[in-house]
């Protein structure tokens, strides 16, 4: 009876929630042609940088009648395609300045956003196959994505139209390398460190970018650990304010300068770690960090530390990237075998119940799974 009532109640929920859930499915989207099977592994990367000031100035990008108004982060990248990491899609909102009719072969004029960097758009050609009238004041989304080259797509009233030749004239490879980076000697608390363009930058499976500094005195690698939903940055130059930096641990936090407009998913604080050039040194460094951490808490094993201060342990664990977390959890799993199992299970339950965020919950869940295996 109770279940029947709940089932009936769920049947009675507002249609808009049902519709929203239906449309959230990639099957309900207009852009069905972007799919994994057809295009294989296709990374999407493109970013628009428009500063708040530039937005205010409303730089004319389409003198034919459309002008950028403000940066508009595309929310919910997974609306684009099933099982696909279109994390780098960015869209901008544009306001139509005067009535314009888009028909095949209509060409948007070239424009440079001098105020905001190096993005240039050439000859965006309307090839949607049908005429589209835009009125003054209409808002359209200009969406950027791409594989080898960034491609531009115009979204009008929820429908997406690819613009032929809509290429941002920066190859994807360079886009990827245009990540934030800074001089090590300038990394000190409160300092401003200039960011450099780097070369041959690729992301590893964890989504981390290892970048050699152009001007690194020690030949070190600075690793910017982006969170999973952070866009690849297109900026070639910029500034990051280092909030804290530990020279011995080579770890710290930097903050992007607020002169830049916020970009979807870009966390203000990005953990930065400086590792040795030799990749094999990484695990040793992690081990050292772990040992230091144990020492600082007067413990000899992670199991002991976890049982005594589970919440502090999880908080500290969150400071590490996913890969390092796994290593630590693995070590913890071994250590916990020496602890009283009932106590461990109870602590895990309590920690999970009092988890303050999803990440904490996930970590505890992960530890639980490891232990029960």
């Amino acid at each position, binding site marked *: 009876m109770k279940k*029947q*009532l709940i089932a009936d109640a769920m*049947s009675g929920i507002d249609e*808009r929630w049902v519709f929203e859930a239906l449309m*959230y499915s990639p099957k309900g989207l207009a852009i069905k042609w972007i799919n994994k099977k057809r295009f294989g592994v296709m990374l999407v990367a493109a970013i628009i940088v428009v500063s708040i000031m530039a937005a205010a100035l409303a730089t004319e990008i389409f003198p034919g009648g459309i002008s950028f108004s403000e940066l508009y982060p595309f929310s919910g990248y997974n609306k684009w395609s099933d099982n696909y990491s279109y994390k780098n899609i960015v869209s901008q909102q544009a306001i139509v300045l005067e009535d314009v009719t888009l028909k095949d072969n209509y060409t948007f004029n070239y424009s440079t956003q001098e105020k905001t960097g190096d993005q240039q758009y050439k000859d965006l050609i309307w090839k949607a196959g049908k005429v589209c009238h835009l009125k003054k004041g209409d808002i359209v989304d200009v969406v950027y994505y791409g594989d080898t080259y960034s491609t531009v797509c115009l979204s009008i009233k929820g429908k997406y139209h690819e613009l032929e030749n809509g290429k941002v004239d920066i190859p994807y490879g360079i886009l990827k390398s245009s990540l934030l980076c800074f001089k090590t000697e300038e990394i000190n608390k409160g300092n401003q460190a200039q960011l450099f363009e780097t070369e041959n930058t690729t992301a590893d499976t964890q989504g981390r970018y290892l970048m050699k500094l152009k001007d690194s005195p020690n030949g070190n690698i600075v690793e910017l650990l982006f969170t999973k939903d952070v866009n690849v940055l297109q900026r070639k130059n910029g500034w990051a304010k280092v909030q804290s930096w530990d020279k011995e641990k080579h770890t710290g936090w930097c903050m992007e300068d607020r002169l830049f407009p916020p970009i979807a998913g870009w966390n203000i604080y990005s953990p930065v770690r400086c590792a040795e050039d030799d990749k094999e040194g990484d695990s040793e460094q992690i081990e050292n960090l772990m040992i230091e951490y144990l020492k600082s808490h007067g413990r000899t094993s992670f199991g002991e530390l976890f049982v005594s201060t589970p919440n502090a342990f999880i908080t500290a664990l969150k400071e590490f990237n996913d890969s390092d977390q796994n290593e630590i959890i693995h070590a913890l799993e071994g250590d916990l075998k020496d602890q009283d199992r009932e106590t461990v299970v109870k602590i895990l339950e309590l920690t999970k119940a009092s988890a303050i965020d999803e990440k904490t919950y*996930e970590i505890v869940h992960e530890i639980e799974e490891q232990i029960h295996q």
Partner: protein
Amino acid sequence: MTDEEIVNLYWDRSPDAISETDRKYGGLCHKISGTILRDKRDVEECVSDSYWTVWNKIPPHRPAFFSAFLSKIVRVLSLKKYEYNTAEKRNTQFDISIDELSECFRTGKDVEEICDANILAKTIDVFLELLSEEKRVVFVKRYFFAETLEEIAKETGHSTNNTSVILHRVRKQLKDYLEKEGIYI
């Protein structure tokens, strides 16, 4: 054919309305019904009945979201069939999702305390309004469409584990919300 065009066919009393509905949403209807009912013949019957119900409701009704309107009808008819068919047999997927959800509801002691499905639906509506789109979608996919965690994860771009975590949190939020609102069943 757009939803609006299909609705217009119903208004015009064109028999094509049903065939077009089936062409566009037949798969969806079968999926919704299939998560509730085991027997394929039952599913077929429910889907056909749903089309017939839509035929009778439009006109005068003109749904704003035709797909959602149809989905709800399919779900309601499938539930009725399910209830009629059996109280003992359990359809795993649907039952699991309802079992999960029922943990959020406290049982009322007095008859006066117990609310009906309409009030409950309205309360859940208000609660859903409070959620982020992402969480709401995961919730509706699980407890309206009775989708599996794997299906939801695939459709929303999360890992299965993460989907499970999201659902766990939303259920907890719902439980707290229902308690705060004094809702018992």
